[in-house]
């Protein structure tokens, strides 16, 4: 959808038509005291050439690191065709067209996206996307409480991404929803069904299960889902879409399947880009669709019987339902989702499975090499997808710093989020890592670790 700016002549014509003498006149009713926006400390604009030069210098300062960092945002190969197509004029816009102005092409891409995500998650309906995985989880929590109708309590495992827990807390805090943490098994690194027994007989609306969890470990999703349904509560799955190339989809968790699945779509063709924009996906069972937030594209036929696409079930949304809407969201991450749809179309289900396999095998190969590094051990026993927690016998902060000097981003320290784990590092391997990369990591970690032990004396 093209952006065509107005010329000064256009603006003058419009002002004349409405009888205003300047654009500032249109803001007359705002009290003078509130109009005091001063931008004196914003420096004058730079030319395109100056900006490019500045960014080149900054990029050099960043250095070119080999990154083994995951923790919610993942470095995957994005085929060149993805953004070549996504930046076409027909798609490329920061604007979110609504029903009357959205083209059939735009709506069709969203419909295809929804279809793919439903297929991937094994759930009936997917919306046109939310902002990111964390806020999508918050929306799922709100949705589950609305669906449950009697309890305002939701269980969150301690193995859920700490930032996701913070975001959910921030978003639901003024809605009188009680969030209760479920502790993890310190040996396995997962949430055991036994840990839930203390909640038996207590009403709660939903249990959230991350898969894989923040430690990279695989949760016992079938047992957790069945237990949750037995308690009359809803199961919310927070999943990595690439992992779904290998793992059972949320729609097939337990006997009845998860009720809602959400997650971060960034691994599907969206670059890391210093943290965003990403997109959140959400899918649910057909029975719950009226409580699902976000836009939904449907396929229908027009008055002449020709097939077409439209935004549907809009009475959930705030422009119709107002304060009773399922959410205040009235947008979606259209561009990111377009890229993800093209990415998934290029990979296909077999391609996605292969990517997941390579990610997983790379981790196993790395862990195998690390067996030979004294003082470094795998912290948890549960099976993992493409991330694992390493326990070090030397100060993890200094070890990571030494590895950074070798141009290796070795992982993230967990001390800040899980102080009980001490010197622990979360390491991730995607398909972007070669065997030579894994060798280099193992060598570097061995050297850094022993140097640190010597230095600490």
């Amino acid at each position, binding site marked *: 959808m093209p952006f065509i700016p107005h010329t000064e002549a256009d603006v003058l014509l419009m002002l004349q038509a409405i009888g205003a003498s300047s654009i500032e006149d249109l803001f007359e009713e705002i009290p003078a005291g509130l109009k005091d926006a001063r931008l004196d400390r914003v420096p004058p604009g730079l030319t395109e050439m100056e900006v490019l030069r500045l960014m080149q210098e900054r990029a050099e300062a960043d250095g070119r690191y080999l990154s083994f960092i995951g923790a919610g945002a993942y470095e995957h190969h994005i085929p060149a065709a993805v953004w070549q197509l996504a930046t076409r004029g027909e798609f490329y816009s920061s604007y979110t067209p609504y029903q009357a102005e959205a083209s059939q092409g735009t709506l069709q891409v969203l419909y295809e996206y929804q279809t793919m995500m439903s297929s991937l998650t094994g759930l009936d309906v997917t919306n046109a996307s939310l902002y990111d995985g964390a806020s999508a989880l918050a929306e799922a929590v709100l949705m589950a409480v609305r669906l449950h*109708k009697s309890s305002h309590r939701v269980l969150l495992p301690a193995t859920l991404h700490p930032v996701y827990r913070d975001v959910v807390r921030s978003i639901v805090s003024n809605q009188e929803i009680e969030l209760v943490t479920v502790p993890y098994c310190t040996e396995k690194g997962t949430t055991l069904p036994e840990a839930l027994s203390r909640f038996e007989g207590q009403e709660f609306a939903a249990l959230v299960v991350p898969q894989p969890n923040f430690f990279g470990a695989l949760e016992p999703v079938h047992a957790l889902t069945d237990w949750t349904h037995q308690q009359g509560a809803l199961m919310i799955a927070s999943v990595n879409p690439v992992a779904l190339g290998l793992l059972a989809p949320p729609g097939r968790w337990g006997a009845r399947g998860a009720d809602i699945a959400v997650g971060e779509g960034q691994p599907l063709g969206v670059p890391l880009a210093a943290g965003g924009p990403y997109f959140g996906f959400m899918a649910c069972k057909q029975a719950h669709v*009226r409580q699902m937030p976000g836009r939904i594209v449907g396929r229908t036929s027009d008055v002449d019987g020709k097939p077409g696409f439209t935004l549907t079930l809009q*009475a959930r949304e705030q422009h*119709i*339902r107002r304060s*009773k809407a399922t959410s205040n969201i009235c947008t979606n991450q259209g561009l990111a989702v377009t890229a993800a749809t093209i990415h998934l179309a290029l990979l296909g289900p077999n391609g996605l499975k292969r990517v997941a396999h390579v990610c997983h095998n790379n981790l196993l190969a790395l862990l195998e090499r690390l067996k030979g590094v004294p003082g470094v051990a795998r912290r948890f026993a549960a099976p993992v997808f493409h991330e694992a927690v390493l326990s070090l016998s030397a100060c993890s902060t200094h070890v990571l710093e030494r590895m950074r000097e070798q141009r290796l981003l070795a992982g993230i320290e967990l001390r800040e989020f899980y102080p009980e784990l001490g010197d622990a590092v979360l390491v991730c391997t995607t398909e972007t890592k070669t065997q030579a990369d894994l060798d280099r990591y193992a060598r570097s970690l061995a050297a850094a670790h022993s140097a640190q032990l010597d230095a600490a004396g």
Partner: protein
Amino acid sequence: MHLPADLKYTDTHEWVRPHGDGTVTVGITWHAQDLLGDLVYVETPQLGKSFKKGEECGVVESVKAASDIYAPLSGDVIAVNQDLASSPEKINQDAYAAWMFKLKPSEPGEFNQLLDAAAYEKLIASESNS
């Protein structure tokens, strides 16, 4: 006939049919469904729940609008029309046959506050003129 004389009405466009045993049946008027257009979804009140007169107890949704349903009298919901879940259009087809729920009123004095057909007719005439 869009305004059965044997029914009572509210200013929020519900109709009330009294039964001999003190219970009432509630639905929305022909006028209401005409304004809303084709109904696509009806959220009936929860069976067994109690409402105060005027309290929101359900929702009707059409393609262009979502409208709250208000309890015409205080009382307990003793029955709910299950057909409306799969066939909301029944309300468009015959608003007075497609009942939404049945109430056991708890405040007998409230019944006389309802509008009769003539008063309701006046109300909708004034609403369309404003």
